[in-house]
């Protein structure tokens, strides 16, 4: 196969993965809609004593035993795994489609398709360990939207890497950034669900058998956000504060230059450091911690989306266009 064949195979695979993610999303939606139908009826008939308040702590309940619901849930996960596999083919072929062959992390489109794949893989890998079944519909929907945006807005044809990106540090630095971005995003999703559930619980408005009733308890959600963040933070530290500066020193002659991208990745680092610090020393948990986690996630995504569009021409990290030598005004006497 030629490079061009791989490139077009990559496009086909990404499109196809998007379709399968969408079908997986449908499966999860069927799962949850069945739950809505089944559980309140059973709860109402079988256990009239239970008031709404009591049900707030009940997770799952009879729904787990419903074979139809379980079937749709499993189907959703299997479809997600299939989509991830096709997604992987798309990412790999993207790299094989370039001449010379390279890692597919040279621009925003490639970064986005890889980061979204990392999110899915982390979700599938931790599915059992952290019991993430509840995350299915939200995560698949999120990935589907992100992939759609990547294809519709960010897509650029395969091209060789510009000279500044031709370095082994591309693999190390960008992969660490992608991995951490995926993990922080997962933690952020858990924090969002935490905040929604927390506010509904406070107002006594969690519908029995509904989605929020089925997601894990508040402490468990809090713990998922913390553990994934605790994994992502050292990866981010390595990618942004070790690999990044080493590469920057090599390419630009300074290891830290307060370039807008560097500023914002520093801000992200500081916010998540504050998050971990607040948890460890001030005993922050729950709502405050979730908000701080989301602030960190917003700075992270602003860094990714914002820097390329808002600061396009001033950042050395802007890869929409090769940065032309900006020669400062030389003064002569």
């Amino acid at each position, binding site marked *: 196969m030629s490079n061009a064949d791989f490139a077009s195979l990559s496009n086909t695979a990404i499109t196809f993965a998007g379709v399968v993610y969408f079908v997986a999303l449908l499966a999860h939606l069927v799962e949850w809609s069945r739950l809505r139908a089944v559980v309140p009826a059973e709860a109402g008939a079988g256990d009239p004593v239970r008031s709404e308040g009591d049900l707030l702590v009940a997770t799952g309940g009879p729904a787990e035993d419903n074979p139809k619901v379980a079937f749709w849930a499993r189907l959703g996960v299997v479809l997600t795994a299939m989509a991830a596999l096709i997604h992987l083919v798309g990412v790999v072929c993207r790299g094989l489609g370039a001449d010379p062959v390279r890692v597919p992390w040279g621009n925003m489109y490639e970064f986005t398709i890889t980061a979204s794949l990392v999110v899915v893989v982390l979700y599938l890998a931790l599915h059992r360990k952290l019991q993430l079944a509840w995350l299915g519909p939200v995560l698949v929907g999120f990935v589907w939207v992100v992939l759609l945006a990547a294809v519709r807005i960010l897509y650029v044809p395969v091209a060789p890497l510009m*000279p500044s990106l031709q370095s082994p540090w591309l693999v190390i630095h960008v992969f660490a950034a992608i991995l951490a971005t995926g993990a922080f995003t997962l933690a952020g999703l858990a924090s969002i669900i935490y905040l929604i559930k927390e506010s509904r619980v406070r107002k006594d408005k969690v519908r029995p058998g509904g989605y929020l009733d089925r997601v894990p308890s508040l402490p468990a959600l809090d713990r998922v956000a913390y553990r994934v963040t605790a994994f992502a933070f050292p990866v981010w530290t390595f990618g942004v504060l070790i690999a990044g500066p080493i590469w920057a020193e090599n390419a630009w002659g300074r290891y830290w230059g307060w370039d807008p991208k560097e*500023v914002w990745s520093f801000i992200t680092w500081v916010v998540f450091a504050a998050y971990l610090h607040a948890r460890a020393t001030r005993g922050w948990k729950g709502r405050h911690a979730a908000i701080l986690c989301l602030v960190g996630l917003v700075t992270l995504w602003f860094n990714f989306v914002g820097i390329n569009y808002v600061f396009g021409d001033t950042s050395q990290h802007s890869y929409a266009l090769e940065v032309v030598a900006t020669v400062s005004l030389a003064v002569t006497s």
Partner: protein
Amino acid sequence: MSSKAPERTYDPDAPATPPPGLGPRELARWAWRQLTSMRTALLLLLLLAVAAVPGSLIPQDDVDSFAAIRYRDEHPRLAPVFDALGLFNVYSSPWFSAIYLLLMASLIGCILPRTRVYWRALRARPPRAPRNLARMPVSASHEVVPDDPAADPAAVLERAAAELRSQRYRVEHVPGEYVSAERGYLREAGNLVFHLAVLVVLVGVAAGSLFGYKGGAIIVTGKGFSNVLTQYDDFVPGAFFDPDDLAPYSFTVDDFDVDFILEGEQRGLPRDFTAHVRYRNAPGDEPTDYDLAVNHPLRLDGGDVYLVGHGYAPHITVRDGDGEIAYSGPTVFLPEDASFRSFGVVKVPFAEPEQIGLEGFFYPTFAMVDGDPMTVYPDAANPLLSMLVYTGDLGLSEGSQSVYALEKAGLDQVTDDDGKPLRIDLSPGQVTDLPDGLGSVEFTGLSRWVKVQTAHTPGTFVALGGVVLALLGLMLSLFIRPRRVWVRVREVTGQQADGGTAGEGRRRTLVEVAGLDRSGSSDDPGELAVAVDDLARSLAGTRVEENQ
């Protein structure tokens, strides 16, 4: 809880309202306590994040001085205010420095006492077991299998101590009473290392910015560069750097290769560019060849050289009204964008009868598209110079001015016969006469230039070592889970309140195990509960039974 727990002697969050009537010493101590409290540290950390934001929104002098100058021109009313607030130099401004210096002070004030506490904790034995283990957050109790020869309480405790030691706990065994064990000391060590390493990073970065320098120079191919101040176009020394200390290296740029992408969406973008240089570390050395490229810097003794940009330098010869060569040589034109349409200026102060100034564009591959002159490709396939002509006083006697701009106050624009501004368009080898006997301009040839950045940054490896150390410490402090485990063995008689149903009056042996997670960041308590229960089962010898 045990009153002997050493970590309780230092409580950074103890209520800190200043009692009335404090003397200056007490007041200072109170302020220090405030500064080193965890709440202040957290606040300073978040403040640091917020304070970093403006530096990404407003162009910074140190990052992109050109953009900063342009911003000042475009916002004449805002600029003085921003200047006063240091917003063009956020990261070296007093207020930004104040935040991180306070943070460092807070950090030192925090790690010093903690190191002391940790040092004591390291040498201390695990604390004595609480009397009632069942009241601990995580506990389990199992009845020792009767008739087990190992059911003797002393033997059970012995096995508990051995088992916990094999799980790398530090174990305190008080025979006949309890076993107390603790592990995870490295968490706090990692914590301290992390904080210490942040200071190391700061020292390394400070060394680089105080004792180092950064400079930039444009070198036309075929020409050389010696590392002395006069050869730099821009030079930013650290506060304590003496330009006399510049390392005596030199190099010549023999040739420059650039390879553009010929097709596809990114047509016209460079695929690769390389400068072939010959360098000497000291004047007497043999020259060595080197391919200087992006991501392939030249490391010299006492400084590094980086290729950061390139462009065109048309050779222009200007003859004055007397026919004398008044100006000749490659002239650096600065690229305006990725198309490499470049802007440049020629100043001819020694032309007779009048000084001549030229300014205009260089098109590497000239073409008229819809009536507009432009370059359709960045490589030099059809080079064209297109310049406007000025005459009069170049203003060079009145202090410094940019070599890349004409000072037009004392200049008149030269016009053609129709009274329109005269524009001279030249291809290589072409020459054109200027009106009014001013002379002639010739485009004799074309060179390329490279922009190099040189830097010397002492302390780089200190900073790098610091970050690596910080990462190691961070991982220890995140992933090590300190916990305490206690084991007691009790002999009870008869039916117990906890639901024991063995025959009345029979003596039974109960193994009680309790655990305490001390990581303080809400890690999964389930794991500890499982570990505690497993230990209790295995000590009681009931594991086999459970598995059946």
